[in-house]
């Protein structure tokens, strides 16, 4: 007697795979964060007890309430900031820029001035064709390339008060 071999169905049921996949896609799309992941980097100096910077050796940028700026106690439009700093740094490239902001000014006012100072690298250099490097447009008195502002210092209110106290002005 011939025994017929039974065909056993050996299929994996994939009918619900599409549902599961779309569910996963929707979950990851909704929970995935499309947040800002870029910003201005800023390295803080090591805390010291005595101020290293003498006021007359630096360029003082004062951001006032409303966003107006004073540079070395003179009113200046934001567009005039980099040309002024460039002129000073060509004489002394080591000159630090001190960015001081009024507590009543907004964070946005301070950031726009800080960003303008950081843009110096882009404005004072030009791209070299076929290379990612940039060429300096200006040379300082010693003949060295001037490509950026070396030191931008953002003292906090407490540090400013400490300096004033040290100078006997507090």
């Amino acid at each position, binding site marked *: 007697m011939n025994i017929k071999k039974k065909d056993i169905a050996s299929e994996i049921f994939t009918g619900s795979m*599409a549902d599961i996949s779309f569910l996963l896609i929707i979950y990851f799309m909704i929970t995935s964060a499309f947040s800002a*992941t870029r*910003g*201005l*980097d*800023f390295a803080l100096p090591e805390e010291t007890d005595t101020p290293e910077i003498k006021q007359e050796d630096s360029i003082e940028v004062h951001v006032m309430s409303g966003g107006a700026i004073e540079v070395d106690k003179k009113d200046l439009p934001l567009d005039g900031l980099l040309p002024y700093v460039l002129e000073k740094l060509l004489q002394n490239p080591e000159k630090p820029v001190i960015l001081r902001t009024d507590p009543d000014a907004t*964070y946005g006012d301070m950031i*726009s001035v800080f*960003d303008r100072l950081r843009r110096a690298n882009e404005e004072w250099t030009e791209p070299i064709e076929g290379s990612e490097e940039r060429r300096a447009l200006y040379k300082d008195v010693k003949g060295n390339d001037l490509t950026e502002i070396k030191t931008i210092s953002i003292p906090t209110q407490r*540090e400013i008060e400490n300096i004033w106290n040290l100078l006997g002005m507090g």
Partner: protein
Amino acid sequence: MALIRGRDRGTGAAIFTASMADIVFLLIVFFVLTYKVEVDKTQMNLPETWVRKKVPEKAAVISISPPDKGSTIRVSTGEEMALPVSTIEEVITFASTEVAKNPNREFILKADKDSPYGTVDEVLDALKQSKVKYIYLLSEQLTADEG
């Protein structure tokens, strides 16, 4: 042989779905790889800047909510959800603990552009006191016509 007229020949009208699985899995893989939990979900208008550097992943986050939301300061290690702190001393404690674990620990400062600078100044001062070395000020891209 007689030709049968008007008979439905059954032309296939199915949508080809065989590649759907590939597309769907490609999307899943993309979202799995780019998946990142936002540790601070405070809605705010970030300041716009021309210069923008990529912030390091898993950096500690300090956020200051907009003035109309109470200028609340929140801190996060970058892995857990941000928690509100009530005093600036708590920020110092948090930052000091993070710096003690890793002296080169990076911090992201996320603040609304309309926040009074006085509040930001207090946070920056707290970070300076905690011997933090690197801070990233989170911003949006400034476009040419705005600059």
